[in-house]
């Protein structure tokens, strides 16, 4: 044993060498937040898939040019902008200090390449691209977007918070064709992805990006400074919510993005946990029919479905009977949105089996079974199928509910074949309210036939109105156009709104500072000892 006097020195050296040896790698983090997200991370391309877990991943690793504040207004994030007087030319300038995780500076070239890839896939991006006459790089830090006519779409699109958000990737990655998923995980966001600890479907680790320079403004929604106050975030997957809640109660995890509502009594009233609802992360249920196949190529049959379905039983099954976490809402774009409408509210909210049956009799429905796809493996979706099936049966439909996992629904809903050859008549899903509340970007209302979302409704009037909305910059006119779209969507059975519900995020009481934003983001979160 060395003499007493030099022991502190040895201790310091040891500590120092420990720090050195682990620096840069996954640091033995002082503060680690272990989170169970709503779905496992299995792929890392934040642009080609609308899976919300990839959006969440995107906000960790990447950054966006603009971002919406808590009031929904676009604000500068990576870039600030100026508009020409005629509202046709937008000039974006990247702020100083932006660097990718590999040390390369973020340039206008990266931004333009990223926007090009994104706008091939995203619905808002597509509308933006259709109006865009030119997008060009001016210098290292500046690029311009020129539109053929005055429009406000650039700011709406570039600050799109959810669905597919326009994340900025390095140019090399952004030039990957959209048919090919990106495997690179280099972004310029506030967290770095730890490639070595990534196990698809099991866990993903993010460490604080020490080189990230946050904006000076305080964080507000997704806008403002992204100040990271923890060292490490670990996303771990629990295929079983019972195990997840047990782990939460045992202190093994700190953050549970979407606790099944039924399990809330286990944490409510326990001072060690907080249960929060983020209104902007609420979801809308939607039922979708296949417009290209009989019987739903007939508008009357779609009307019968609209009348047959009602919202309360669905919400009861999802979040608990008469729970405050679910709200009936007839508005296609959501009741909190700018375009909220109560058009035909009674028809949409309440089930009307008798009226629906009358239509079936009138049309002479021959009892051909309706092939309804039911996803069984996601907490929010599993209750939908049986409720829809029962309501349709009550109205005299013959329903063939086929249960499968969500991956199979995703694969099958892309098929336009006849039911016997792998096609479908109906499915249901959820979309988050920020996506729903945007008539240009919401996949549920696009009605361009072939180019529309699965179900392929073809209502040219809706497409014309969506284009008109994109070109409009007058809020009153926008609202009026949105409500017209709402009417057309309902009358044509483009989709059936099935109520809104809010997920509950449960956290260890040690965690504070989660932002009220459209996505769960981990900057600004603090963890007390």
């Amino acid at each position, binding site marked *: 044993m060395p003499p007493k006097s030099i022991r502190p020195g040895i201790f310091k050296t040891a500590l120092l060498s420990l720090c050195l040896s682990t620096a840069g790698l996954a640091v033995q983090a002082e503060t680690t937040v272990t989170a169970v997200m709503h779905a*496992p991370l299995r792929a890392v391309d934040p642009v080609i898939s609308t899976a919300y877990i990839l959006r969440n991943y995107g906000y960790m690793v990447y950054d966006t040019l603009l971002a919406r504040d808590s009031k929904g207004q676009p604000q500068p994030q990576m870039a600030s902008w100026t508009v020409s007087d005629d509202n046709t030319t937008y000039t974006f300038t990247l702020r100083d200090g932006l660097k990718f995780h590999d040390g390369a500076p973020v340039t206008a070239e990266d931004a333009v390449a990223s926007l090009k890839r994104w706008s091939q896939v995203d619905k808002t991006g597509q509308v933006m691209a259709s109006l865009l006459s030119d997008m060009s790089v001016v210098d290292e830090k500046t690029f311009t977007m020129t539109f053929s006519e005055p429009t406000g779409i650039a700011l709406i699109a570039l600050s799109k918070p959810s669905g597919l958000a326009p994340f900025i990737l390095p140019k090399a990655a952004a030039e990957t064709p959209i*048919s090919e998923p990106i495997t690179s995980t280099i972004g310029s966001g506030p967290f770095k992805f730890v490639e070595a600890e990534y196990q698809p*479907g099991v866990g993903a680790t993010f460490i604080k990006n020490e080189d990230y320079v946050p904006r000076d403004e305080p964080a507000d929604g997704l806008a403002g400074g992204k100040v990271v106050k923890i060292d490490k975030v670990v996303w771990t997957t*629990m*295929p079983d919510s019972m195990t997840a809640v047990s782990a939460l109660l*045992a202190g093994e995890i700190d953050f549970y993005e979407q606790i099944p509502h039924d399990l809330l009594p286990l944490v409510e009233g326990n001072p060690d946990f907080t249960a929060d609802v983020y209104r902007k992360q609420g979801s809308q249920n939607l039922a979708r029919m296949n417009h290209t196949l009989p019987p739903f190529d007939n508008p009357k049959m779609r009307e019968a479905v609209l009348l047959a379905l009602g919202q309360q039983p669905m919400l009861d099954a999802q979040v608990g009977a008469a729970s405050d976490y679910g709200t009936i809402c007839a508005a296609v774009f959501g009741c909190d949105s700018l375009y909220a409408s109560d058009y035909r509210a009674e028809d949409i909210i309440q089930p009307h089996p008798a009226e629906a049956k009358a239509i079936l009799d009138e049309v002479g429905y021959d009892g051909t079974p309706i092939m309804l796809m039911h996803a069984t493996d996601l907490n929010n979706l599993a209750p939908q199928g049986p409720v829809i099936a029962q309501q349709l049966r009550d109205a005299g439909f013959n329903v063939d509910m086929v249960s499968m996992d969500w*991956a*199979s629904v995703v694969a099958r809903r892309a098929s336009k074949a006849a039911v016997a050859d792998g096609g479908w008549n109906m499915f249901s899903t959820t979309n988050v309210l920020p996506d729903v509340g945007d008539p240009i970007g919401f996949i549920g209302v696009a009605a361009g036939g072939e180019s529309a979302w699965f179900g392929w409704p073809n209502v040219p009037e809706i497409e014309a109105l969506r284009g008109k909305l994109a070109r409009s910059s007058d809020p009153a006119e926008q609202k009026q156009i949105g409500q017209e779209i709402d009417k057309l969507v309902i009358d044509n059975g483009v989709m059936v709104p099935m109520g809104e519900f809010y997920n509950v995020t449960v956290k260890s009481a040690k965690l504070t500072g989660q932002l009220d934003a459209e996505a769960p983001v981990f900057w600004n979160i603090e963890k007390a000892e």
Partner: protein
Amino acid sequence: MLGFVVKRVLSAVPVLFMVAIIVFMVLRLSPGDPAVMIGGPNATPDQLAALRESMGLNKPLLEQLFIWLGAIAQGDFGVSLVSGKPVAALVMDRFGPTLALSLSTVVLAVAVAIPLGVIAAWQQGKWLDRLVMTGSVLGFSVPVFIIGYVLILIFARTLGWFPVQGYKPLSAGFHDFAIRLVLPSVTLSFPYIALIARIVRTNVIEVMNEDYIRTARAKGMTEGGVLMHHALGNAAVPIVTIIGVSIAMLIGGVVVTESVFNIPGLGRLVLEAVLARDYTVIQTVILLFSTIYVFINLGVDLLYGLLDPRIRY
């Protein structure tokens, strides 16, 4: 002896070949186009056609089979259709937890089941025997996940002795590693204990009635000595056999147990792969499990020679 070993090892080859063919057929004959899976929702028909071409999906089935077998022979298991990572790497990542869970289960099961079986045999027909036997049938009859949940409820949630879930590799320290394995291993060992205890009992009883045991008794050997020296020794062959045979049962249990205790092993990998239609991963994991099964049984066959002097080669 050597000839026997070589012959047995060689006989495993056609079995594995057959497994490969069956797995290939089952997956290829299924509806669904792998090109659509890889191409994703945004692939154009042209891109899909190109993908099919590059993946060889246009070729006759038999040719595809041989191409695939050739790739496997070179250690190329393809890439995951979902994550894009090499399948071999994914499998290696998940192998540790499953191996740890399986080994600890087998050790635990053998350590508990042999004494139970011997006691039951020794007490044959008495209440202790009945208790062990009834318990063992019960062990078969209760679904593994129910056992898992009940154990979590009692030992993790109520008593707090063990973590609820998760896995830490041995490199994170023995304590962290071991403490997370206790509940899953106990859960998984239930049917295994039941099975082995029954075999031990039956065989010990049988051997106890043999002439040489009667002689040993007559010579004044204690009952315990008889049990340990002769009976158990001679019962070793069937016991080893059953451990080998029931490895398939263990693998089935692993899938369930890993799901209940959130252990990132091969069982969960294959379950996730099946649910996501990740064919390359399914193929590889099933092939791997089958290979393990074949080789363990091969090992058991060879052990036979060592344990049972009556078998001559």
